[in-house]
């Protein structure tokens, strides 16, 4: 059975993924001249058009901008996960990140809830981005079940 998609990016996105994987901390591209954040990373800053950038560590804190609860999947590797919730997080720094919800009751997810993006290492280069909810702490049992399902 094919596993879940592990991306194999190159160039800028690989730099971002490596920054996250090597530190275990969420990172976002930031313009080295004007300080604007960008995601996904870009070769020129959309604000000041500078080509100079760095990958900057961020807390991962943000709010739910949108989300979807998937009840069906065409991918064998996800069949045991349904229903699974995916969240678009608007980081406090501005960029929006797609990640997998860690929520005991995914049907209760709403726009505006406070969350934190937490990377979980998968390979030397790729960390799976999870989304933890401030008001819905994941129980240890649920977390263990999630890890077992992901394994």
């Amino acid at each position: 059975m094919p596993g879940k998609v592990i991306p194999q990016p190159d160039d800028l996105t690989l730099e971002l993924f490596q920054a996250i994987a090597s530190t275990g901390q969420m990172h976002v591209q930031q313009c080295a001249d004007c300080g604007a954040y960008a995601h996904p990373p870009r070769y020129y800053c959309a604000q000041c058009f500078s080509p100079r950038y760095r990958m900057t560590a961020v807390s991962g804190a943000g709010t739910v901008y949108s989300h979807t609860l998937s009840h069906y999947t065409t991918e064998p590797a996800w069949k045991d996960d349904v229903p699974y919730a995916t969240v678009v997080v608007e980081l406090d720094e501005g960029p929006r990140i797609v990640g997998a919800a860690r929520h005991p009751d995914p049907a209760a997810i709403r726009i505006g809830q406070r969350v934190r993006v937490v990377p979980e290492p998968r390979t030397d280069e790729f960390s799976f981005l999870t989304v933890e909810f401030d008001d819905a702490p994941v129980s240890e049992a649920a977390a263990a079940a999630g890890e077992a399902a992901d394994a």
Partner: protein
Amino acid sequence: MTQGAPEASPIPGRMAIAGIGETGYLRGSDQSVLQMVLAASMAAITDAGLTPADVDGILPPPGFVAWDEIAAHLGVRNVRYTSTPQMGGASPTAALLTAAMAISAGVAHTILVPIGWNGYSALRPRPDARPSKRRFTAAFFETVRNFYAPYGLRSAPWWYALYLQRYVELYGVPPEAAGAVALACRAHAQLNGKALMRGRPLTMDDYLASPYITEPLRKLDCCVETDCAAAVVVTSTERARDLPHVPVVYLGGAEGHASPADELTNRPDMLRLGLYEAAPRAFAMAGVTAADADFLQIYDCFTHVVLLQLEALGLAGPGGAADFVKGGTIELGGRYPVNTHGGLMSQGHCWGMNHVVEAARQLRHEAGPAQVADCSVGLVTGYGDLGDGSVAILARGDA
């Protein structure tokens, strides 16, 4: 710095659709994509009263088939112009603008615009089937692979749900609004001998009982996968007047894109489709608005995407499409019949070229039991990739 419409565009009224062609809309064709595209193309050329020797431009789709093989197999010997808009399902309607530019500029005289695919069989290949040779190459697939697919969002319903859920949650859009779109398309398909869903009427109870794929999308919010091809032949309006059918005149059109175009979630407003940019420019060029249209052929990969496009066209304010579609407004007999052929939802998914073909059929007054009485102006939209938009405004050219 603003980018207004050019003064006195040379485009309005100069080009007309002279021929239309389409295959069946099938769950499993025994023909290759190239064969289907050639069949639809030859049907459109013949319908125009022409032969391939008259064709001097080809605007092929952004995948599956290429212009050079189409020309070689049809016997088009002197291609003066070829080009392809790269925007998925927005491509066929956007290609009409490209054709209108080429024709009004005198670069080419008679242009074939075909598209086709094995949208059903590619996902369910027969044991002896060979894989498609040419796939789409848009950069957004890289975005999908890196940022969406790892989280279980591997194809269109799952990507689009990321913004459609925001739409229904922010505006309280009830499921019945999306259901009204599904029901209108299905009702119209009952009148169309080529519609995949003919003979399978749909009720609101059926719709509401449909299981979720990924919220807010239910199974019946999704269009049908089909093997099919469709094509149009366009030429100068002047020349079209000498051909067999009433010319279907291109009054104007536009393409528009959200930014960034290759990623959905980091747009200032995730709900602002490219059509919001395209529609005002198309209306300015054509000198008409959506309120002047006798029917709307709206790209309907998913029902909620139709609701958003009705708003982008200015027919309703943000969140207002839910009220707009109430009471039969978008059904035949209503003020704005939508997708009179059944659309992608219930006729078949031909990347919106079937919407262009149906618009031409309506304006020729050849739409049979689905005919919008005395229609003279029609509007077609395209939607593709991550929200690219296109629009074409067409008119019956018997004036």
